[in-house]
């Protein structure tokens, strides 16, 4: 019986973020005839994909009670490294061109490695997550600038005679009309939603965020969990970096600036608690779409960029306010 009322309450909570999404779509459809079209939704969804992928990683970290400020920089650095590999790697006198799949795998590994650095700092050296990932954020950004000397790799298309074409596949191709980036987002969201809800690892994550000491004494491998979530967040940032540079067919060291904040916003709008232990992938996806659809809508309607920033901020606070009011009455202690 209480199980039922509990799930009803949860539904209402998620329905609220959902309601926000519907309101946004309705308002912009009314304001602009171009908004409510399939092609526009697909374009907007491909924009959301970048934030959405980052937000999934961010959610994992936030669920353990941490935060990952480095994802924007890691995204840029991974994009740059992918760009560098596409341009060819100088080995002594000859230049080696890697196939695209090799570039992708190596880029993911780089992202994972940087994430693991965050994880080691947090899990083994007990550096507060905010500080550790803030440092790594600067370091990764700096490394990206060093790598390119501040410039941008522009031509990532590859050459057929070198056998490395296809980098733009991620950003431009479509499956049944749906952009690959959106497909990637959906696949990742499903994988992680199921992992969180149904695997031991998912349960460990929630327990670690809820009370790490109690989790530890109950046999949850807390350090492993922390190491893994930061590594996953790094890998997901690399995925987002690949998608972004593929969409732009260029990779610059200043890409993804402040994307970490957008990802955090998506997670909290989606109902997760920054203190850890509460949140779902479904909620986070709703949050990402609320923020993405709002931002694109404002552009389409032609609101000045300054007002866009104001609106976005207001919506984030409003959405979280509704959540916290809901949580407060639900707990009612």
């Amino acid at each position, binding site marked *: 019986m*209480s199980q039922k009322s509990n799930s009803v309450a949860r539904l209402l909570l998620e329905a609220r973020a959902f309601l926000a999404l519907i309101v946004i779509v309705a308002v912009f459809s009314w304001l602009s005839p171009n908004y409510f079209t399939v092609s526009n939704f697909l374009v907007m969804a491909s924009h959301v994909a970048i934030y959405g992928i980052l937000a999934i990683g961010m959610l994992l970290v936030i669920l353990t009670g941490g935060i990952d400020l480095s994802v924007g920089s890691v995204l840029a650095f991974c994009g740059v490294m992918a760009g560098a590999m596409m341009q060819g790697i100088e080995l002594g006198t000859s230049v080696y061109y890697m196939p695209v799949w090799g570039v992708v795998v190596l880029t993911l590994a780089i992202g994972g490695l940087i994430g693991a650095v965050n994880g080691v700092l947090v899990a083994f050296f007990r550096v507060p997550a905010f500080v550790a990932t803030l440092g790594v954020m600067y370091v990764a950004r700096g490394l990206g600038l060093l790598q390119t000397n501040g410039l941008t790799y522009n031509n990532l298309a590859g050459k057929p005679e070198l056998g490395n074409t296809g980098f733009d596949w991620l950003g431009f191709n479509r499956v049944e009309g749906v952009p690959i980036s959106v497909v990637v987002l959906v696949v990742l969201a499903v994988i992680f939603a*199921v992992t969180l809800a149904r695997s031991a690892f998912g349960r460990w994550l929630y327990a670690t965020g809820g009370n790490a000491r109690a989790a530890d004494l109950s*046999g949850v491998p807390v350090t492993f969990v922390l190491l893994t979530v930061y590594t996953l967040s790094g890998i997901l940032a690399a995925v987002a970096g690949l998608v972004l540079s593929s969409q732009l067919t260029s990779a610059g060291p200043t890409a993804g600036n402040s994307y970490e904040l957008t990802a955090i916003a998506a997670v909290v709008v989606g109902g997760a608690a920054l203190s850890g*232990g509460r949140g779902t992938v479904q909620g986070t996806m709703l949050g990402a779409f609320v923020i993405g659809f709002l931002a694109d809508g404002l552009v389409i309607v032609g609101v000045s960029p300054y007002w866009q920033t104001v609106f976005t901020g207001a919506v984030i606070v409003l959405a979280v306010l509704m959540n916290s009011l809901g949580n407060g009455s639900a707990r009612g202690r």
Partner: protein
Amino acid sequence: MTQDVVLAARNVAKSYGAVNALKGVNFDIHRGQVTTLFGENGAGKSTLMKILSGVIQPTSGEIILDGQAITFDNASHARARGISIIHQELSLAPNLSVRDNIFMGREIRGPMGVDFAEETRQAQALMAELEQDIDPATPVGALRLGQQQIVEIARALSVDSRILIMDEPTSALSASEVEVLFKVIRDLTAKGVSIVYISHHLEEALQITHHAVVLRDGTMTAYAPRAEIDLNWIVRNMVGENYDLGSPPEVTFGAEALTVEGLTLPGAGFNLVDNLSLSVRKGEIVCIYGLMGAGRTELLETIAGRLRPSAGRILLEGAEMGALSIAERIETGLALVPEDRQRDGLVQTMSVGQNLSLASILSFTRGLFTSRRAEAAIIDSSIKRVTVKTSGPAAPIGSLSGGNQQKVVIGKMMATNPRVLLLDEPSRGIDIGAKAEVFRLLAEGARQGLAVVYSTSEVGECLSIAHRIIVMRKGRIVAEFGPETTKEEIMAASGEAKAA
């Protein structure tokens, strides 16, 4: 007669959704006397006390202060009227010092902001009154659970209140500290302060009380002045039958299950566990008694793997445990029920069911995923096994009464099917019926070869469950007794000055 009653509840009811925690209760607090509230876990004792101290508001009914009906808007309103409460679950800020916790929200103002010198002086005076050697500058998080409870008591005493409500203030204290508290209570009542006392240590409560009230399922089932009652009366009214905590189960011990050799855990300046050796055989129940700070918790946490010893070996049925993580030790069959349920036992963001199944997730994971059916089976059997009173496995853990939360912690570790079970003050806050149930489970486990190490600060428990009683003092074993020993002998060995 009525002017003798300072604070009263009339027909007070409280419901949380469909749960009726209180169903029309009448309760009187007598001037300058101690009124003790008895009742099972989840009977509604804490709920009633929270209502009387303004922490929560009743769904219906009224509160009468000095003959006048009154509504408390919040706890500080009630405090302003002279009512203060020691909560069952500690409400201290672990990052702040003892002094700052005592004066939190009521800082003493001086000409230059807070008068820290005066606060320190008063805090020291309170510690002296409670006969505790705690430096007011220590952060509360660094204190043992019992010491934290002392701080909580000191905080309540620092307010000059007319009515002092104590919700299980002694659950983590040992006999000599309880003795000191009782002295303080007698001084207070002599000065005209009225006390409400709640405890599951029934005999202890009988020493101090003037009136006894029994709550059962949200209704008051019995009242009597001290002169007319005894232990049997309480138990009969609480649970409707007589519980005998019994005597140690008849078991033929098996091979050595747990072996500890020369275990040493260094502390600041001295060893918390000092070159300690211990061996427990299959089917044996060993009780560890000691005063606060004797090193019992540290010993058990070291065996469980949370603390790293500087020397010594730990063996489980001959297999070296030293290098294993906590998770691996649980996997091999070594489980610990920790002392502090809020800090070490429960995950507040999870439901009752998820807490119960947390330590045994891998046993219901099939391939990549958890099996809902297998998990539900584990949760259901655990709820029945330790008799958790809850509206269902999906209820938030915070909606359970204190004792029922404790049962969840015990049930969680029992669900891992341990071969050696360490329990650190497991009876903290559980009622006599549940205690009997836990003892029955331990006895049953022992018959099937489970080795149990049970730490307690209640001597009576040792006598009714243990095959062997070990007394610890300053990190060492100072005495060992068989089941035929007496309370007095055990307490004398622990260094307790007075026998209770």
